[in-house]
């Protein structure tokens, strides 16, 4: 089984510890993981803002970087959803614009191999107990693209429930968007901030020490809102909790 | 301007818009999977009637049961409870359903909306009743009359013959109905959710809906109520208690 990590551009530049956590976690589970260095960004910010044509080179780059791997593991629900849902759409549109079926074929070549981290753990490796230790109270915010586009369902929660020492706190309005939405956060900053403030308030109300998601971009918005409000709740990616052990705690 | 306006313009635009649809594709070739349920659960006729009663009551209709022989007495009781002195009926409702001493108006085309507005109650039959949704359908047959008679008076008594007029589901009801006939589907009395999305019963249509389920095996003289809300029916004051058993 050849496994590659698609770390995503946000994690690469801003949250390297999340990528490091995925590597540590997978290696602990006996999976040898590779990091093809030609990878970069899935193209989601450009695509979701309407710059589909400008996104196309990144589809080719993604496919080329991960050629030959059986599984591409992505510690981001929205980036995984970008590949799985939007690459095929881009291919179909390129074909409809009379530019042939190459992009569609390229997209199809990566869709079935791309897994969000919790999908890879639960569906491919078949584990829900990864031997993690995190003696803290945690609340979980299911990010929209993981929840609705990928249908991650109970996977993240099951993984969290098996973490030793972890106490999960229910989050009110958990399935409501945090207000990030990529360029939405700046194009409609007022509404985005209002959504973020409500999310932050619900997180505070849980009394949890940490808030956890499968997406650092949403967490950047949630965390930025929390710290601006003087909150002490710690934003943490699910991978970092799962990588945490008694020997090497987070 | 011609009566048809921009008929050709609109149709031509629609046809151009559908340039991607193969010319030889027929509408029925576009897949429609009807793998939804015809009925949500299996029920005996008795269970079906019970469900109908429950769902009618959920939306504040008052539900009563009686035998065919007891029907006139039941109707009389409901009119008395309501305090109605006048009642309108479509031509197909038997005279016997309306008690003596009541001003009984037979609907006709000559009856104006204003005249209807002065009448207290209306008594009709129905075409079909839907248990799963608590719906009565009127299709302007002889015992249901013109649509306006069940609209303008503030009190509607609707008689349902059980089990033959009760179906389980919306799909079954549509099968029984003729689209050429004007229909009114009624699920509880008039209501609105327009104030803070809270449901309030009673706006323009009849504010009180009594449904009488007529069953052969109901006790000969019994009239029972399912709805807890029946007691607060308007007009009860000063007009005596409803007949109970």
């Amino acid at each position, binding site marked *: 089984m050849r496994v590659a990590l698609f*770390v995503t551009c946000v994690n690469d530049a801003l949250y390297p510890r999340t990528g490091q956590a995925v590597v540590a976690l997978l290696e602990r589970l006996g999976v040898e993981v590779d990091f093809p260095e030609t990878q*970069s960004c899935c193209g989601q910010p450009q695509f979701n803002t309407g710059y589909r044509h400008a996104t196309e080179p990144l589809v080719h780059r993604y496919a080329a970087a991960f050629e030959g791997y059986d599984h591409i593991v992505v510690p981001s629900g929205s980036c995984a959803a970008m590949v799985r849902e939007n690459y095929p759409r881009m291919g179909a549109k390129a074909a409809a614009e009379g530019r042939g079926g190459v992009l569609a074929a390229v997209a199809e070549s990566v869709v079935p191999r791309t897994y969000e981290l919790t999908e890879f753990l639960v569906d491919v490796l078949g584990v829900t107990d990864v031997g993690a230790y995190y003696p803290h109270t945690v609340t979980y915010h299911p990010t929209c693209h993981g929840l609705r586009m990928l249908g991650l369902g109970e996977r993240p929660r099951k993984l969290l429930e098996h973490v030793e020492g972890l106490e999960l706190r229910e989050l009110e309005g958990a399935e409501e968007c945090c207000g990030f939405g990529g360029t939405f956060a700046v194009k*409609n900053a007022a509404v985005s901030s*209002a959504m973020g403030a409500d999310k932050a308030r619900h997180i505070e109300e849980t009394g949890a020490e940490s808030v956890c998601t499968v997406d650092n971009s949403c967490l950047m918005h949630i965390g930025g809102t929390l710290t601006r409000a003087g909150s002490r709740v710690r934003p943490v990616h699910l991978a970092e909790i799962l990588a945490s052990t008694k020997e090497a705690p987070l | 301007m011609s009566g048809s306006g921009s008929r050709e313009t609109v149709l031509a635009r629609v046809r151009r818009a559908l340039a991607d649809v193969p010319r030889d594709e027929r509408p029925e070739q576009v897949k*429609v*999977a009807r793998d939804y349920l015809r009925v949500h659960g299996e029920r005996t006729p008795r269970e079906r009637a019970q469900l109908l009663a429950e769902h009618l009551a959920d939306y504040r209709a008052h539900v009563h049961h009686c035998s065919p022989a007891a029907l006139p007495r039941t109707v009389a009781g409901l009119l008395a409870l309501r305090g109605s002195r006048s009642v309108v009926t479509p031509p197909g409702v038997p005279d016997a359903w309306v008690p003596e001493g009541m001003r009984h108006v037979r609907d006709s085309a000559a009856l104006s909306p204003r005249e209807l507005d002065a009448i207290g109650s209306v008594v009709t039959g129905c075409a079909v009743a839907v248990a799963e949704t608590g719906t009565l359908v009127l299709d302007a047959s002889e015992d249901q009359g013109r649509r306006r008679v069940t609209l*303008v008076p503030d009190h509607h008594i609707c008689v349902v013959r059980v089990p033959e007029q009760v179906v389980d589901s919306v799909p079954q009801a549509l099968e029984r109905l003729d689209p050429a006939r004007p229909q009114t589907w009624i699920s509880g009395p*008039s209501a609105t959710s327009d104030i803070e999305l809270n449901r309030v019963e009673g706006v323009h249509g009849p504010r009180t809906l009594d449904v009488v389920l007529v069953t052969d095996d109901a006790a000969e003289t019994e009239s029972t109520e399912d709805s807890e809300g029946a007691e607060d029916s308007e007009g009860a004051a000063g007009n005596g208690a409803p007949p109970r058993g």
Partner: protein
Amino acid sequence: MSVTYLGMPPFPQAAEVSVRDERLRRNLRHATHTIRDKRAGAVAELVDWAALRAAGAQIKDRTLRHLDHYLEQLEGAVTAAGGTVHWAADAREANEIVTRLVRETGEREVVKVKSMATQEIGLNEALERAGIAAYETDLAELIVQLGDDHPSHILVPAIHRNRGEIREIFRERMGRWGRPAPDGLTDAPAELAEAARLHLREKFLTAKVGISGANFMVAESGTLVVVESEGNGRMCLTLPETLISVVGIEKVVPTWQDLEVFLQLLPRSSTAERMNPYTSTWTGTTEEDGPRTFHLVLLDNGRSDTLADRVGRQTLRCIRCSACLNVCPVYERAGGHAYGSPYPGPIGAILTPQLDSMDTGLDTSLPYASSLCGACFEVCPVAIDIPEVLVHLRERVVQGGTATVRGQRTTVKPAKGHAAERAAMRAATWAFDHPRALRAGERLASRARRLVPRRLPGPGRAWTDTRDVPAVPPESFRDWWRRTRGPQGGPGSGGRGARPGDSDSDSDRNSGSGDSSANGNDKGDGDGPAGMVR
């Protein structure tokens, strides 16, 4: 004529104001959360909801793919049943037809059932200009009309008003239009409803002309269907002598049987009821029962343009249930007025710009009025993938392309005001397509990380006004990987690549030029795959 109201600012500006309106936020939050939970319960009651939803989408798709056929069939059936069918290419023509028809009756007043189509075309205003008074009879529409206000919700147009505000409007304004509000009117919803009943009763009993829309039109039988709650619809549909129904061409369904799907989907999605209190169906005219004259005005007004767009087409499946509004976090905070048309919320954000051919600055801002969270798609009873259409319309805004405008295939230029963003997006793609540049950029950011101010200038301010920026780490992931694991490629070739990660040669092609780099054979990566050996 635009579907959007005259002089409306782009969505972000309007929303920036409305989001600060605490009372509006409270009213909307209360109302949408109440109905949200109820809807979930009503839907959960039907174990076959997913199948009904799929069938609803498929029936609509069948209709739309053969819309010309079904419209002609409908026209024939309505005519055979005694009705008269008119066709209106746009709002102006529809208003002209209706005005003429009302004038022919000699009446100066009409009663109206709540109808999205007549709001869309501004019929009330057009009638007013012709000296004809149109009385809205739906309770919420009455509140909006009396308050000289715009609707802010598809189902509950006065959702932005709470009971106290409604009481004030009734007390102050009812008398100007007819019977005044009763003395001592309180804000109890039942009393407010009673006041509306008394106020409108007189109008119903004397009205000679009724104007409606329709929820469905059955092509095979020529039957129209109006789904409602209050009974004002029944009043308008049955008491007047003349009935004029203005209906969008997409409201047709093929068969009577098809209603079995929509009469299950619509009430549960809309008011969270098993069935709405009243549904009226009529086929042409009926002797001595209801109006003697029936006119059906079939309205295009941008629908055929929407139909021509293969991604946008699904928008026309909409049955106006408003479930998407009730779950939308953006709608809940911005309110309906910020959308600037009778169609607020997620469906408005895709429908309005399409009907309008992106005519206004508001139109081009609407596709961005969403975080793409997908809650709307999840609850949509006819499975309109609203996020997909939003992104598709964003392309039309910033990329341009071809679109159909008033029946003409047109090349659309990108909207103005996106030049800086476009340059930034292309620069981003270029950087992401040139790993060496990307790595250099990341390292530069790391070195400068202590210099990042807490509040950014320029466009960054929109972020830092309310949120902290994340700290830039001292080392990117790719630098960490190389430092700890050494450079390597992927699996497959067995040989060690010559630092493929640093190769920029894969990016010789013209990044961001708009043509798909069609060969898909990225030269520089060819030497990459290096197996799993470390």
